[in-house]
């Protein structure tokens, strides 16, 4: 029982810090509401889909930015997609990078775009690691006989 309470407090604190530090926003809370007994791994599944999508888009953008003549419209279209999907899962930091990224695309600024691409990679890695920790904690709680606390 004590171990369980400890784990649950750890989870609550960790989740609170993710929100506080802007890794996730309210839309992530929405996702939690969509998870239940009939779809117990929903959040993990959507998040995985997002990371796959993100990787693919980043690779595409890198290729386009490597060209002699950069097709900024294409880059912009990829950024738009990434902005959309990051917003849909509540990946706030990534979404915010996309907003800056779009500005650089519109200004046809290759250096700015490359910097943003690097930032996206960085945020992607951080978020992935954070969410892995989150899911691990949740699994530990369930294994200890508890249930994952519902979000407010």
């Amino acid at each position, binding site marked *: 029982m004590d171990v369980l309470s400890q784990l649950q407090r750890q989870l609550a604190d960790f989740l609170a810090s993710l929100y506080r530090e802007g890794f996730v926003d309210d*839309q992530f809370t*929405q*996702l939690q*509401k*969509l998870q*239940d007994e009939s*779809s117990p791994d*929903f959040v993990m*599944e*959507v998040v995985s*889909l*997002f990371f*796959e*999508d993100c990787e693919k888009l980043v690779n595409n953008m890198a290729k386009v930015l490597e060209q002699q003549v950069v097709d900024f419209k294409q880059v912009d279209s990829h950024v*738009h*997609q990434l*902005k*959309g*999907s990051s*917003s*849909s*899962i*509540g990946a706030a930091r990534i979404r915010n990078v996309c907003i800056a990224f779009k500005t650089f695309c519109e200004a046809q600024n290759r250096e700015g775009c490359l910097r943003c691409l690097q930032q996206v990679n960085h945020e992607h890695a951080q978020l992935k690691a954070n969410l892995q920790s989150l899911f691990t904690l949740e699994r530990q709680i369930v294994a200890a006989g508890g249930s994952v606390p519902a979000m407010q």
Partner: protein
Amino acid sequence: MATAGEILRRSLTDEVGVSKGSVSGSEEFHVLAVDDSFVDRKVIERLLKISSCKVTVVESGSRALQYLGLDGEKSSVGFNDLKINLIMTDYSMPGMTGYELLKKIKESSAFREIPVVIMSSENILTRIDRCLEEGAEEYIIKPVKLSDVKRIKDVIMGGDGK
């Protein structure tokens, strides 16, 4: 006896189903969702399922028209069996935009009565006006929330119920 009880229960359910509103237990609220993003498709599907809707999700406007049998080819579903209560479509899609899909639906005598909701991450007034003028029920800003789905469903079902 079990059989008699079963029959009695079934007829009661039917009565209750009918008095509850236009959508009874056997007639689910069927939504056709259209979005080119994997992530958004997964989210919208779950949002709708959790809101007790039957969901069909497709990845493009042309797929949606195919499903509805409006593409000139034979539809995959029998015309008489197809009961769609709502169409929710993303605005920005490659090929056919949500706006273009909206127009095609409103031009069709078979489907023009079906409410169409446009979803978009962009809050552009001229775009919103254009969609509403073309007959969209609503234009909602992404990301779509559970409360959006509940509200839309209530509005549409409320309009139907007597």
